[in-house]
């Protein structure tokens, strides 16, 4: 459990350093400060029972804040690679914080080390794959017609809506 906690903090610290660094390098000190502030809120929320804020909601608010700052940075012209890396690290930190919370909420965990190892390994794979695809998407440029983009957009929205519906209906 301690390893998972360390890994979560390291992942969060990495996301903060990379994103704040990217902003700082471009002279956006105020935004770098905002990133650190959101990160601090997240870290504070992870401490259990802190100011009555439930840990999972504090972590989710932290993730949303960081990703919106990252998106804003990309729109402002920050280099894509570090921002995407920061986004992926934030996602990993969010996932591990939730796993940590889930594990801490029960009295007994069967095969605890196996659960953690399996989860972290799979998460690393998913994050690496996601990062590679995202980097490729930011580098590779395709000229598509408006109709094709519109159709792809509709497919994406349909898929997401279906996923969202599935979530409430269960397997």
């Amino acid at each position, binding site marked *: 459990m301690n390893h998972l906690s360390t890994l979560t903090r390291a992942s969060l610290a990495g996301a903060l350093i990379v994103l704040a660094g990217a902003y700082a390098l471009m002279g956006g000190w105020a935004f770098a400060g905002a990133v650190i502030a959101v990160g601090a809120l997240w870290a504070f929320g992870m401490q259990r029972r802190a100011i009555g804020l439930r840990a999972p909601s504090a972590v989710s608010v932290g993730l949303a804040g960081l990703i919106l700052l990252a*998106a804003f940075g990309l729109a402002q012209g920050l280099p894509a690679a570090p921002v995407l890396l920061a986004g992926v690290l934030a996602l990993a930190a969010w996932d591990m914080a939730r796993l940590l919370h*889930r594990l801490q909420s029960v009295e*007994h965990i*069967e095969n605890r080390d196996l659960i953690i190892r399996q989860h972290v390994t799979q998460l690393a794979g998913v994050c690496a794959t*996601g990062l590679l695809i995202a980097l490729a998407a930011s580098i590779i*440029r395709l000229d598509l017609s408006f109709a094709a983009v519109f159709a792809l957009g509709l497919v*994406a929205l349909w898929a997401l809506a279906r996923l969202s519906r599935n979530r409430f209906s269960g397997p």
Partner: protein
Amino acid sequence: MTTLLGLIFALLLFGLAALNGNVIALAVPFVAYLGWAMLRRPERIRLTATRSLSLDRVSNGRPVDVTVSVRNEGESVVEARIDDPIAPGLELVEGITSAIAILGPGGQVEFRYTVRGQRGEHRFRDILVDVTDSAGLFHTALTLEARATLVVVPTAQRLRRITIRPPRTRGFAGPIPARQGGSGIDFFGLREYQVGDRLRRINWRASARHEQELFTNDLEQERLADVGIIVDARDETNTRTPNGSLFEHSVAAAATLADTFLSEGNRVGMVIYGSAIVNVFPGYGRVQKMRILRALGRASTGHNEALRHLDRLPTRAFPAQSQIVFISPLSRDDAPVLTRLRAHGYAVIVISPDPVSFEALWLKSASSGLDPAFQHTAVRMLQVERRLVLRRLRQVGIQVINWDVTQPFDQVIRQQLTIEQLKIERLNR
């Protein structure tokens, strides 16, 4: 999940609005993560649960071990959070009641805990299982049937022998004086000598007064008796305060008396008269003791308009002229029914936990907001009323034990029963 979907939508919309592909690319890892969670989601979940108790019947306050086992009968790997809510009225002594486990096909998780409970019937309900994917995004709540019942029976105290004298006894030798001459220990009377009488039983002093006749000492036979215990479980009579219920004292007394009478070899039956009539037919020995304790463990007070008065008391459950022990705080309407029982030839002992002192004790300790002088007067009036009811019962030959429940039951029964018996004997003379 909501956070993730919201972020993906927001990034897509923001990217489209800003005409920035990099912002849309930022959504890609999140979509990949979501896809991974979906792929890892268990499709066909088949879990079974079993629960075992170290004992299904225990005495008050004794711990019981509960073992819960959940097994994956399906073919996919399942990550499950298992919660076993403890039955109300039970207290967790040690162990765990929830667990997280990854269960492969045929995998099993088992956890144990120890509980302790107050008298009553405690039902363990279903086990709650929350199955999630690896990321904890998709949840499926399951309820696995693993029911069990634990009956906590009252503890029977050890009492010294209770002297009872029912008008009719059974044919087997026992500890109850049978009001019949024969072989025994206590002197019963004199009779003329009959051939076969032992010389040592001839009363020489009485024989000396007569020239031609010899007299033999007759001893009182001692036999087993039929004892019927009636426990009053009516809501109307059983006072309840935040400190507890008077009914618990009645139950403890019933358990103690049943144990004592049965251990002396008597045949004991029981009726619990409350929201329904629970009848334990007369029987002997340990098995009967268990039957009675089990019934007492399940007993609770209740209201039934039809059973509001004692008119429907099933006295036919007890043999004629046997001993009846009625345990009740008593209401003023009960006296005629008990008098009728006495008139039908039953020997009746009433053990009455005192509701007035019980409630007064709580009123004294709690800040009820009542004027103390008013409270004092009210208590006195109720005590006078109660004394009148008890006196009416004593006048018809019923032995009444007024039990202030702050006093130990064995002490009260030893002292008061002796006094009551002397009073009854005086009355009979």
